[in-house]
């Protein structure tokens, strides 16, 4: 049976397309075009240059790691905020968003003064990969929490009660009933968190130490290429980041659909 599509709202769609084009599509296309400016071989040698390659590997690795942490901790935080009652819950809830409000360079500065050479808590991780991970965890914290939280709030408790009355334990109920409902939200949050993580500049630039091949992230490496007037190489590494983001976003979407239909 074929369902008729609802009539499109011409003006709405037109405006949406125009806006997306001006703000997103055209700039992204320009970067990709620029990276192909000197041909495929130049593009390839730009992203496989030792410093670029190692910064890409480092950035993707740490962003992926932090995203995994966010998936668990973000879901836990959302759960605690929705299902538990404790003193200071409202304050806690408000504080979740603060990493978004802070200019990321300030976040870097704060982390550096807390976990750097003069650490008041005697934890010195400055200028290591751990520091990069902590900085990324800080700036990406809100994503999973804020996508999962509303879904948990809306969720019908009767489903869980039904599961419990049918003999399911708390863990089974969570795994078989609650979690499948959360998959789309977790996946969405994870995708945002990963995409944000691989592009992060401000918070990592201070605390990473930017040692090429060791702690330099892709965004800082790109900045160096721009500073050296190597715009084509900068565009090439940026395009690599865009493609990886796209692959991951699509991959997460596919995995999430698969998990939902299966669950």
């Amino acid at each position: 049976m074929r369902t008729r599509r609802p009539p499109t709202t011409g003006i709405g769609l037109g405006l949406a397309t125009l806006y997306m084009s001006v703000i997103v599509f055209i700039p992204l296309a320009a970067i990709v075009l620029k990276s192909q400016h000197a041909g495929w071989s130049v593009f390839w040698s730009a992203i496989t240059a030792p410093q670029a390659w190692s910064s890409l590997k480092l950035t993707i690795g740490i962003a992926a790691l932090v995203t995994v942490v966010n998936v668990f901790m973000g879901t836990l935080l959302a759960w605690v905020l929705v299902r538990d009652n404790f003193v200071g819950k409202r304050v806690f809830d408000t504080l979740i968003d603060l990493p978004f409000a802070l200019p990321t360079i300030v976040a870097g500065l704060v982390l550096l003064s807390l976990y750097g050479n003069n650490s008041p808590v005697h934890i010195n991780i400055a200028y290591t990969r751990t520091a990069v991970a902590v900085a990324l965890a800080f700036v990406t914290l809100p994503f999973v929490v804020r996508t999962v939280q509303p879904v948990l709030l809306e969720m019908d408790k009767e489903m869980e009660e039904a599961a419990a009355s049918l003999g399911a334990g708390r863990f089974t109920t969570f795994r078989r009933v609650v979690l499948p409902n959360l998959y789309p939200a977790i996946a969405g949050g994870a995708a945002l968190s990963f995409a944000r993580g691989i592009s992060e500049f401000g918070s990592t630039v201070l605390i990473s130490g930017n040692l090429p091949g060791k702690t330099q992230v892709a965004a800082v490496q790109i900045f160096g290429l721009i500073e050296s007037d190597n715009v084509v190489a900068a565009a090439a590494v940026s395009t690599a980041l865009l493609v990886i983001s796209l692959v991951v976003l699509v991959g997460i979407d596919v995995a999430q659909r698969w998990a939902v239909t299966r669950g």
Partner: protein
Amino acid sequence: MARVRRRFATVLAAGLALSLVAGACGGGDDNKKSSPTTEAGGKELPAAELALVAYSTPQEAFEKIIAAFQKTPQGKNITFTQSYGASGDQSRAVAAGLPADVVEFSLEPDMTRLVKAGLVADGWNAGEYKGMVTDSVVAIGTRKGNPKKLKDWEDLNGDGVEVITPNPFTSGGARWNVMAAYGALSNVGKDDQKGLDYLNTLFAKHVPVQDDSARKSLQTFVGGKGDAILAYENEAIFAQQKNQPLDYVVPDRTILIENPVAVTKNSQHPQQAKAFVDFLYSKTAQRIFANNGYRPVLAGVAKKNEFPTPKKLFKISDLGGWSAVSTRFFDPATGVLVNIENQLGVPTQK
């Protein structure tokens, strides 16, 4: 409606009051015009707003210099918009169309970029001072009291010494540090290998952090990391003026840093822009630069022993000039520094 109109009236009144005050101030200056103390003896120039685009460090100096310029007959009708930022960023912004009448950068390649873009005349460096408005030298900053006794380049490669310097690919200014070290160790290029070996050891074993800019390096150093920092003398003086706990030594062999200034070709007010640039070479302006840690280019401005000249001071031109140096050392694909940096990521070979 009535409310809106009332608000409009208030704004209008405020505007009128402001212009009256401004007029009164202008009148005040008129009275001073006959005073002979102003050194730029030029005639009054028609009113104009000049856009000054400069790198970040001289901001405080420029603010004072502009105030001084506006007290001269030439400058009294001239107002300024000021933009400060990383030298390379500022230069690229102007090349991409940021309106500018006067540009000042931390190193010559940023000016050369504008010459290539057709925005600065070829002959910008033809004058008496070769287009350079301030000088400085690369110095070695240390902890207060210099506990590790770091006085010269060799000391920096001593056992367990940590040296902070920005990444020369993200910080154009950090290239002065690299060239100072290379020039000092290679006897100004004569013993090339020795210079290269030094850079190799320095970056491989002694530089634990490469911040993206000179200011962030200073932040890192003041935050407790490292035993020494490679910095411009004026930055070190600036840090001391801001009560940051550091000392500095100017090594006997170091490089003369030269900061270029120019009027742009597409300036809407070339006459006024030139008058301002000329004023930058006046005693008043050069003294303000000196107070902010820069070495004045005008003879007779620096006080005795204010800026001692290092025994073996060399210039970038002694090493072949920026264009040759940029290609050989800082080309992002084949430069000497790229090879040095690439080795950092590789596990150390036995």
